[in-house]
């Protein structure tokens, strides 16, 4: 008869320590997920903040831009040079985002042109911003529809994103202090042009600098 040799157990690995590490890692991951969710909920309204602020009667600061001039006019230019929104401080600026392939942009262009002709000598600048378009097509568009108001060009869509534009055309009115007084998401129709004129007249009566 044989006897088995006695078996000596090796020391156990430090399981408690390993469990602690896993618990910390899990807690950090859960905290990160919860943190991101909270951040997402807190920033839920950011995408519409401009419209929300204007609806609440506020005038948020108009996002600054500096873009090359596509078509010069009304003191904006010459073509190819960069013009910043801040350089027009003291004037009322009507910013219109457009593209040559956009049907509603064609429809509103005549109304914008008449608005420009009415206000061009009254400290108002109508400033087009060509987005998502070829330079050549934009120039052809201006020539075809006989437009004379100045336009900048934003090939990279930076301004469109800054102004939370979801498409073209969209129009924004910036007061003399560089604050957004109105956003018009969509084409300027006849009624809108009348309302736009009323808002511009109201802004013109405001003091230049407070």
């Amino acid at each position, binding site marked *: *008869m044989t*006897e088995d*040799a*006695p*078996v*000596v*157990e*090796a020391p156990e*690995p430090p399981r408690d320590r390993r469990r602690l590490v896993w618990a910390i890692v899990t807690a950090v991951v859960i905290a990160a997920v919860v943190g991101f969710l909270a951040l997402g909920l807190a920033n839920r309204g950011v995408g519409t903040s401009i419209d929300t602020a204007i609806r609440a009667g506020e005038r948020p600061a108009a996002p600054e831009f500096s873009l090359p001039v596509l078509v010069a006019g009304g003191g904006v230019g010459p073509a190819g040079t960069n013009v910043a929104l801040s350089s027009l401080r003291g004037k009322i600026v009507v910013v219109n985002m457009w*593209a040559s*392939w*956009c049907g509603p942009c064609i429809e509103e262009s005549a109304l914008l042109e008449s608005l420009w002709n009415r206000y061009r000598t009254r400290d108002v600048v109508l400033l087009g911003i060509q*987005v*998502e*378009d*070829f*330079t050549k*097509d934009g120039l052809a568009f201006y020539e075809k529809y006989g437009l004379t108001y100045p336009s900048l060009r934003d*090939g*990279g*869509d*930076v301004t469109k994103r800054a102004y939370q534009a979801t*498409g073209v055309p969209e129009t924004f009115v910036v007061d003399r202090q560089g604050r957004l007084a109105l956003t018009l998401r969509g084409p300027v129709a006849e009624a809108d042009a009348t309302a736009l004129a009323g808002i511009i007249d109201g802004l013109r009566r405001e003091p230049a600098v407070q």
Partner: protein
Amino acid sequence: MSRRPVSWALLLAMVAMLLLLPAAGLGLSVNDVARDVRCPTCNTPLDVSNAPIAIRMKQYIADRISAGVTEKAVIIDELEAEFGPEIRTVPPKSGFDLIAWIVPALVVFVGLALIPIITRLWSRRGRDHEPGVAPPSPEETRRLQEELDRLET
């Protein structure tokens, strides 16, 4: 004389020509370029977009190919000059954007290199944790010897 060998030779020559012909020689297509360019309106590659500007951009690509441009990079550079660097669906393999190409390859390479190291480490750790057999004590040796002696007698 049979014509068959001549036909076979012709057929072989044609197959060889097709195999030797580089892909570029078949001509750059609009979709070759369009799939590497993003539609500014919908953010999808141009080849799957029907947005007005995507259609216009595909027309531009077709015009450039018709004008004799055979390099995809030339057309994409022209589009980038109009619409900015975000127009590319894949970053260029130069400058800062090179990181986008190097980092994933580096991660894969490091990962592959780590596999044998980690495997060896784990197997060594497992070996170290195996329950060991302690040598018998003098008392056990004596008892064992006694048992053996008893069995022999």
